[in-house]
C-alpha cells in the first residue's frame, strides 16, 4: 500500500467511532430541515457546500425562523471562527503546498481536526494531509447520506425516536478524552484547567462560544505554563 493510501486509511479508520455521532446529527439535520418546510436540494446544498455541523444547524434554524439573510450569514461566520485556530495548529503539520491545501481545508471539520492532531502525536512518519482527507471524506459521506435519510424519514414518519443529542455528542468524545489523559500526561494540566473553565462558563455561554473560550483558555494556560521555559 502506498504511503498516501495508508495515511488515508488510518484517518478513515480512526474517525470510525465518530461516524455514528456525525450520522446521528445528520439525521436530525435532515429531519429538522424537512420539518421546517425546506426542499431537499436546499438542505443537501448546506451539507455539501458548508459541511460544518454547528454552522449548518444555526443556518438552518435561522432560515426556518425567517431571519434576514445577513443575520444568518453573520451567525454562521461567527460560529465558524474556531476554524481559524484549527488552521493555525495544522499550518506546519501539513505537507501539501499551494492550491492543493484547499482540499484538506475543505475537510477540516471538528472531528477530522481532532483525529489528525491526535494521530500526529502518535505517529511521526505519516502524511497528515491524507489522514485529514481520509477522516474528513468518510465524515462527509455519512454526513450527506444521513442528511438525505433524515429528510426522507420525515416524509414517512414525523415521530422519530432518538437518544438525547447532548448525550450522543458527549459520549462520542469521552473515549478520546480518556485516551488523551492516559497517553499524554503533559496535557493533564490543560485538561484540568479546561474542565474548570467548562464548568464555570457552562452557566453563562452556549456551546459554540464555550468551545472557543475553553480552547483559548487551555492554550493560554499552556502558554503561561511554559512561559519561563527556554524556547525551542
Amino acid at each position, binding site marked *: 500500500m502506498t504511503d498516501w493510501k495508508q495515511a488515508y486509511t488510518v484517518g478513515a479508520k480512526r474517525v470510525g467511532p465518530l461516524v455514528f455521532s456525525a450520522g446521528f446529527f445528520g439525521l436530525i439535520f435532515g429531519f429538522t430541515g424537512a420539518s421546517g418546510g425546506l426542499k431537499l436540494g436546499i438542505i443537501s446544498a448546506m451539507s455539501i457546500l458548508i459541511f460544518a455541523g454547528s454552522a449548518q444547524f444555526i443556518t438552518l434554524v435561522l432560515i426556518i425562523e425567517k431571519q434576514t439573510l445577513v443575520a444568518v450569514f453573520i451567525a454562521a461566520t461567527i460560529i465558524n471562527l474556531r476554524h481559524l485556530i484549527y*488552521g493555525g495548529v495544522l499550518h506546519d503539520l501539513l505537507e501539501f503546498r499551494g492550491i492543493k491545501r484547499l482540499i484538506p481545508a475543505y475537510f477540516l471539520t471538528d472531528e477530522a481536526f481532532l483525529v489528525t492532531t491526535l494521530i500526529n502525536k502518535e505517529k511521526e512518519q505519516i502524511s497528515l494531509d491524507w489522514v485529514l482527507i481520509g477522516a474528513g471524506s468518510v465524515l462527509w459521506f455519512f454526513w450527506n447520506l444521513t442528511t438525505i435519510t433524515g429528510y426522507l424519514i420525515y416524509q414517512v414518519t414525523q415521530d422519530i425516536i432518538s437518544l438525547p443529542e447532548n448525550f450522543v455528542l458527549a*459520549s462520542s468524545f469521552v473515549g478520546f*478524552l480518556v485516551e488523551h489523559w492516559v497517553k499524554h500526561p503533559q496535557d493533564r494540566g490543560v485538561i484540568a484547567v479546561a474542565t474548570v473553565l467548562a464548568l464555570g462558563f457552562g452557566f453563562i455561554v452556549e456551546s459554540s462560544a464555550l468551545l472557543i473560550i475553553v480552547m483559548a483558555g487551555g492554550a493560554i494556560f499552556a*502558554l503561561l505554563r511554559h512561559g519561563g521555559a527556554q524556547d525551542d
Partner: protein
Amino acid sequence: MTETVQLLILIALIGVTTLALRATFLFYLPKFINHPRIRRAFDAVPASMLVALVIPFTFFVNQQLSLFRTEVYAILITIPLIYLTKKYAYGLLISIISYIIFINLF
C-alpha cells in the same frame, strides 16, 4: 423560485466563507503566531477541545447544571470502563449500552 435562488446563494456564500476561515492560517501563518511559545499553546488545543466537547454536553442542559440524569450516570460509568479496558474507541458504544441498561433498570 426567487427565495430558493436567494437561499442557494446564501448557502454558497457561507460555504465559501467557511472554506476561507479554514484555509486562512493553513496558507499563511503570521510570524508572531509561529513563535515556539505560541506553537505550544496550539498543541494544547486538542486536549481542551475534547474537554469542551464532553464536559458541558454531559453536565449542562440549556446552561443549567443538571447532574441527576441517566445520561450523566451512563457517561460517568463509561469513563472507568474505558480507562480499565483501554477500549478508547468504544466510548460511544459503552455509554449507549450503559444508558439503555440504566433506562431499563430505573
